[in-house]
Each structure stands twice: as structure tokens, then as C-alpha cells.
């Protein structure tokens, strides 16, 4: 984390720095100590950093999971059955009320348009894209990306 912060001095790089820190972590999410450190580095307040973290939906808040599954639920995917995919995922992975899977590996997120409408319904698992899905295909994809 120190290495990453060293690259960014200007306050405007806060979002870039958070991206890089999260990309490098095995478990997604930032702890209190890390948030304090970031705030200090950019000479701003913890409230500012928390404000930015909570504003942007790609930044998880304190949820420790290995993979994030982003299911697009915007119109193009929606009319091709993405809600059913969400329901299937939640039951298949045994998600709790925070949408974290029973084994703690996955976070299931319903997200807005991913710009993958040509291959709807589509999901992103971390940085990878999967399209033209149905329940069976999704199941295979999940098992391959565990």
C-alpha cells in the first residue's frame, strides 16, 4: 500500500489510488487503519475518503470477499432474464443478507449497465467478462472462477 501511495501525491489521485490498492488485495475492502492512512497521505480527512469510497459503487465498504460478481440488471440484460440470474446465484451460492456467499468467497452485486448489451445477459467476475449467459452457463463460469 505504501508503494502505491508513493506514486500519487496530488489529492486528485484519490480514486486512482483506491483502485490500485483494491486491485492488489486478495480480500476486497478497506479497514479503518488503511482509510486513516490514505487520508493522511492525501492530506485530507477520513470523512472525505469515506465519502468518496461510499459514493462509487465499484468500491466495497468493509466487505471481505475474494471475488465480486457483478450482474447487470439494466434494461438490455433485464429483458433477457438477468433478475432470474441474480436469484439463481443467490440461492446457488447460499448468499446471506449482505449477498456474500456461504463460503465467504463471493459477493453478488446487482449493477447498472456494463456496456455489454451486445452479449446480454452479462456479468463481470472481478475483471473478467462473461456474456450470453443462462443458469447452466453461469454455474460453469462460477465453478471455473472459484
Amino acid at each position, binding site marked *: 500500500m505504501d508503494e502505491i501511495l508513493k506514486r500519487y501525491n496530488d489529492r486528485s489521485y484519490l480514486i486512482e489510488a483506491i483502485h490500485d490498492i483494491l486491485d492488489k488485495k486478495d480480500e476486497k475492502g478497506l479497514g479503518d487503519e488503511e482509510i486513516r492512512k490514505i487520508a493522511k497521505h492525501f492530506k485530507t480527512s477520513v470523512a472525505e475518503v469515506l465519502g468518496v469510497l461510499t*459514493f462509487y459503487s*465499484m468500491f466495497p465498504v468493509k466487505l471481505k470477499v475474494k471475488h465480486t460478481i457483478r450482474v447487470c440488471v439494466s*434494461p438490455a440484460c433485464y429483458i433477457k432474464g438477468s433478475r432470474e440470474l441474480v436469484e439463481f446465484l443467490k440461492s446457488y451460492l447460499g448468499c446471506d443478507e449482505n449477498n456474500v456467499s456461504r463460503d465467504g468467497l463471493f459477493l453478488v452485486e446487482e449493477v447498472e449497465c456494463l456496456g455489454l*448489451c451486445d452479449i*446480454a445477459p452479462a456479468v463481470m467476475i472481478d475483471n473478467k467478462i462473461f456474456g450470453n449467459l443462462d443458469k447452466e452457463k453461469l454455474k460453469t463460469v462460477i465453478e471455473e472462477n472459484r
Partner: protein
Amino acid sequence: MKIIVESSLSSPVILSFSKEDTLTAYVSNGGFETLERFLKGGKRIEILNEILKSGLRGRGGAAFKTGIKWNAVANAKSDKKFVVCNADEGEPGTFKDRWILENRPFLIIEAMTLCAYATGASRGYIYIRGEYKNAIEVMKNAISQAYNESFLGQKIMDSDFSFDLEIRRGAGSYVCGEETALLESIEGKRAQPRFKPPFPVEKGLWGCPTVVNNVETFANVISILKNGADWFRQFGTQDSPGTKLFPVSGRVKEPCLIEANLGVTLGRLVEEAGGVDDDFQCALVGGAAGNFLYKDELNYPLSYETLKEKGKVLGSGAILVLNKNDRREEVVKNILEFFINESCGKCTPCREGYPVLLEKFKGYLNGSISKDEVLRLSNLMFKTSLCALGQSSKFLLESYFGVVL
């Protein structure tokens, strides 16, 4: 992604069937010749005049004349000026900018550099939505290749002109597509839109004059400067010159990206995408900020002015086709939920309005609320919201109910 050039178009302006993601490929196709021509003797005013004469309109959705923006920034007095490319493509149904970023990154770099040269800017940012991991990688590579060969950086191609360009990633916020919210995000803050005026051309990044253009807008610049405004005006219509990228998805046999003249009909685009899967019901044009077009509008020309005459909008050009089995009201509910999720919370009409609007719409569906009451609220939000996000439901709902107030 499948790409199609609409059959009445002899050759595409933006789409290209060969990948141009290396500098060598771009230069061998005549890339950076235009930049070189202007840096070695061309006048800034020629660039500004040509873009103005071309009548190019912003392709992000608002369709503002690009030449007017560029001239305003060029004429502004400031030590620092900026050029920003809005690549925060988040409008549901829209995937055109992704194609450009992934396939023709240098076209954007050259266009932004020329824009900076013409307006007197010294620094540029490409703001790409965080979800577009691949586009970010391709663009990052392209920028570093351009730096290595002196197409970016200090004294570009041995001229006196210097320009620095960097990528800033978004992080999952639709409102960042709004230009002032995007500027806030580049500054590293929560992306809440600013009051306008002042517009970014007067006070943009860090309060300095800033050009903000969509990816597709920049993608037209080089061919205009290469071939002239008159050449560009052979495409499209009088008030909407040029070609347009139309991302077509939903109930068509082959979802794809189509380049066509502005003024093309919806019916043509649907045909090019392999026709409708089952019977055509309607199309959502322009995404969540857009509106429905129906069967009787299949032969109506799609351009900024023709749709405006009907009280409708073209927006980003996204076409989402619904067949007779799709439930239009479910799509409307889905979009209202989308706006609830994406509202930044800064202004009351949008933050408080959308949840109530959704309830009222559900009330309309079960018969307890009149359509006038639903439209009254969306009209109020249109008049009082700070940015386009809070204003967008007006077009959607009026087209749903089939009325223009």
C-alpha cells in the same frame, strides 16, 4: 463485437475492420499526419473554423455544437486550460465508445492533441469508466506508445507544442457521464454535478476553461480536418451532419454496432441487425435518458432535429428493441429503479423525486393514480433538477404514455 456499416454508407467514417491498436498500424493508415500538418505550419484558427463549419454535434447525448465549445475555450483567457474526453459510457444499451477505445485508441489521442493545440490547452484527461478494464488497458498502452514516439509530451514532433495526456478511471457511477460530475471525479471527489452556468468552457477542471467531449465526438475530428467540413457534411442531415454509431441490442437476431448516416430510419437499423426476434413492439432509443419509439415511427429519420420536432430525443443513439412479449412497463420500472440507484443525492427533486415517481407509476399500473399525476411529477423534476439525471424521466414517461405535454 459485431460491427456493421449501414448499406447506404459507401465507407465508414469511424468504424474500421482492421484493428488499429498499435502505433505502427495507425501511422501506416495515415495516422498523426494531420497533427504533423498543423504543428508544422497549420493555423489554430483553421482547426477551430473547420470544426465549426462541419456542424459536428456532441455524440454523448446533448448534441451541443463541438465548434462552439472549442472556440469558447480558445478565446478564454487563462494560464491553464484542459481537454477532457468523456469515456464514462454508462447509458444503458450503449457500447459504442467501448468499441472506439478498444479498436482505435490513437484516433482519440490525435484528436485530443489537436483540440489542445487549437484551444491552447496543455493537459488532457481521458475519463474511462472503471468497468471497462480492457479499454483502459488498450488506451494505457496507446498513450505510452505515443509518448515514446513523441506524439505526446514535451515538444511534440519537434514543434514548440507540448501536451500531456493521462487516463483517469471511474468507479461505477452513472452520473459521471454528466460533464461537471465527471470533472469533480477527475479532481478525486464525490461526483456531484455543479451548478451551470458557469459551463466547463469557462470554469472546468480546477476552475480553468475546459473542453469536454464524448469519445465518438473526438473520433470524428481527424477525418473532418483531413477531408474538410464540406466532405463531412455529405453525411447525415443539414442540422445533424455526419454519421453516427448506433449500438443495437435486445430482441434483434444479431446485436451489433452499426455506423449509419444521421437521419437513418429505425427500421433500417433493425433490419441491419438481422431483424426482430419475434414481432416488433417498440424500441427504447437513447437508453435510460431516452424514450420509446413505436411501429409507426419505424420509417422516421433518426437525427437530433427530427426527433426534437416530435418532442423526443436521440441521446446516445442506443437502440434497445422490445418484442411483443416484453413488458414495456417493466422496463420503465427498471429504469426508474436505475435512476433511484444512480441519483447522486445532491438536489432534492432528483433524490426525493425518483422514489415517489416509481411509487406513482406503480399506482398508475394498478389503477389508483392517473397518468397526469405521474407526468406532473416527472415534468416538475424536469424543470427543477440540477442535472440531466433528474430530468430524464420526462422523455421516457411521455413516450410511454404517448403524449407530449
